[in-house]
């Protein structure tokens, strides 16, 4: 079974979002998503400074099975990307919620975070998708 930490927020498109002490948010893919994709072989991250509207593709994760778009969970600016993933995409498979984070964003409007799913709602979504 996949993990769904209680202190994170989630999107319907299987990203997790964690609010950092400085108000920025870290974004990654959920444990469920990495299990579905299987071993990752390539990750394309956004550029620092780029701005995205919520729901826009901003990164790509590629596994031996498929390439999947990663969507910006909220509108905002990219402030940091996890450069370690370039040489070691498997980091996401090993710890989707820890070292496997993809990028940090500065949300344009922190209230947007409230519209994201909580752990229970995301777990229910995964259940409903029948995976």
């Amino acid at each position: 079974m996949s993990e769904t930490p209680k202190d994170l927020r989630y999107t319907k498109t299987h990203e997790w979002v964690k609010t950092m002490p400085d108000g920025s948010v870290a974004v990654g893919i959920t444990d469920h998503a990495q299990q579905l994709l299987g071993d990752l072989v390539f990750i394309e991250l956004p550029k620092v400074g780029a701005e995205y509207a919520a729901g826009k593709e901003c990164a790509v994760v590629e596994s031996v099975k498929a390439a999947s778009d990663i969507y910006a969970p909220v509108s905002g600016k990219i402030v940091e990307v996890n450069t370690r993933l370039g040489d070691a995409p498997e980091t996401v498979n090993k710890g989707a919620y820890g070292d496997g984070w993809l990028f940090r964003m500065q949300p344009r409007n922190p209230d947007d975070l409230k519209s994201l799913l909580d752990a229970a709602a995301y777990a229910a979504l995964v259940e409903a998708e029948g995976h």
Partner: protein
Amino acid sequence: MLIFELSRSGRRNPSQSPSVMPVVEDIPQHLLRRKRPILPEVSEMQAVRHYTRLSQKNFSIDTHFYPLGSCTMKYNPRACNAFSMLPQFLARHPLASPATGQGFLACLFELQEILKDVTGMKAVSLTPMAGAQGEFAGVAMIRAYHESRGDVSRTEILVPDAAHGTNPATAVMCGYTVREIPTDANGGIDIERLRAAVGPQTAGLMLTNPSTLGVFERDIQEVQLIVHKAGGLLYYDGANLNAILGKVKPGNMGFDVIHMNLHKTFSTPHGGGGPGAGPVGVNERLLPFLPVPVVAQARDGRYVVETEEEHPQSIGRLSAYMGNAGILLRAYVYARLLGRTGMRRVAEFATLNANYMMARLKQQGFTAAFPARRATHEFIITLKPMKDATGVIAMDVAKRLLDKGFHAPTTYFPMLVPECFLIEPTETESKEELDSFIAAMVAIAHEAQINPELVKNAPHTTVVRRLDDVRAARELDLRWRAPD
């Protein structure tokens, strides 16, 4: 072992060399190479053994049942090969005058006519060299059409999420943004979401029918009306044409443009990247934009090659000369062997075989992804229940099938269905072959229960055991380097 590793300096094999080497004197000095290329030096017998052994390691349609969904791996009749390899075809120079190539041009003209007839379109161009290029040509024509009318505000192409993965890529290559339309619970396009998505920004919709979910779209008429009413055009991805060949025509469904994969539906050899052929068919509206060259028949019956001169609004050329001529000839022979009635039988038996397999597998306890829907020429089962009960995943079952003498179906595609197999038997398999595949699936399901490790470690009997596809993707190594 690579053939380069068999090489010994000075070993020669002159019997296959041309008896007269052409004298080439007009190549400028600076273009001539200074060093001899590093080529393997082996005897004729070494070369024969090397490549024969390699071919024996291969799983192919000539040796094994190959139910790779979405790929239409049907038998390639030998007659198609034999006729297209006639010396008069092989030795023809592509720049030879049409006067000396009337036979060749007649074949291409008739192939255009046959494809028009079977798709219900007004005209066909054979020049795209692959399915993806056919798609590109199709969407480029949609773009040219809107631009010719000064209608430049159309920036969006709609693509259902059950379409072929190449569709969104094609739209982007043609400068459009892609809007995805979701699938409803029964695997069909979600009509309400489509209705909400169309507008003055809609350039067109790309539809794969039957879809990659192995079901026929049931609301084609509705889809067609919605998109056309919004001013968009309809693109038909013909990759799955095998299911409807000769039975229903995309032109009659109201589609404006279609591409066909001759290397699937018309049985030309494929796999390993080609060569393919992806002709495009258009209705009246898109006629002026058709890629050139096309073959036409003059009043006196002669065949002529038409280019930009006759088609000034053409989107242009997609290949040198006439596309993959040898492949087009094979498709032509195939079509002539079948005739109109034969083509209908292709679709009938392709769908019958798929429905038979789906029904039998369901009886044996396998789970169809869309149990309420009839299969098309292919269908999806999900091995999720097996995974939950035994820990054996779809990939393990795929590998174990190799031990039992079957190429695996397509795995983990489409991604909408977990632990899935997309199974496409094609019309060319016998009932006995289908039954033995089903028996192998039942045997593997049993093994998964009593000895899951056996399945998880498969294949056991192949020349190469389970490949490390993750390492292959992460550390791509395709180049041989000569030792210093």
